[in-house]
């Protein structure tokens, strides 16, 4: 939208699904509009450090476990790596 090339990958949809959390609930917790969550989840908007840290605190995870500039490995791939590594 603003010409930025970098795409942000996120595990927010998975984390929401795991906790049965709707976009609206997550948006309220992070203090943004729920459509903004949609933009972040689709990688169309790179959120600020403030949102990143709030999400990390909310899910009790490090920021880099939620957001990444590289695509996240699939869960199958990760599990396989752990088993064989």
């Amino acid at each position, binding site marked *: *939208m603003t010409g930025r090339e970098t795409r942000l990958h996120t595990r927010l949809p998975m984390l929401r699904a795991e906790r049965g959390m709707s976009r609206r609930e997550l948006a309220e917790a992070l203090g943004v509009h729920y*459509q903004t969550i*949609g933009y972040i989840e*689709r990688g169309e908007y790179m959120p600020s450090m*403030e949102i990143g840290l709030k999400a990390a605190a909310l899910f009790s995870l490090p920021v880099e476990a939620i957001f990444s500039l590289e695509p996240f490995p699939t869960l199958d791939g990760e599990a396989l790596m752990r088993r064989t590594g």
Partner: protein
Amino acid sequence: MTNPESAYGRYMKRTFSHPMVERFQTRRVRRLLVVAMLANTALIVGLPLLTGIDWLGVPFFLAFFPLAGMLNMSVRGVTEIPLSSLDEHQAQLRLFSFSMAYYPAIALALLAGIFGPQLIETLPAPVAVCLGGVAGGTLLGLPALLLAWRLPDEDGLMDEDA
């Protein structure tokens, strides 16, 4: 750095987040509204000139205001709601829309300044008044107009999950 959110800002934010308003926020509806606004502007001037009936543009001039309101709803009011009531993404969209409209608005204002006086003299009075009003409204609403055309579709808008 950021101003505290005003009661007016909260009211505007609530209004533009109403489920009824969200029905205007699909790309199809947004683009239809942009086309309707442009067609309406053409009819305001074109119909009286084509038919010779001076007041024929007035109903379309009156239609301009609800159309402009619907256009604002379609972009979640990001160009209308006070900045202190927007989240960071909405604030970014607002700044993007204003920067996108900057040069077109200057060009339109220049054209209006250069050709406006001559044009108004040649047009019948009701048409000239309507055209002046719509030109001013279009200039002010240009950020919302351009943003409405450019915004991508937002999936899951009507989802229960949303």
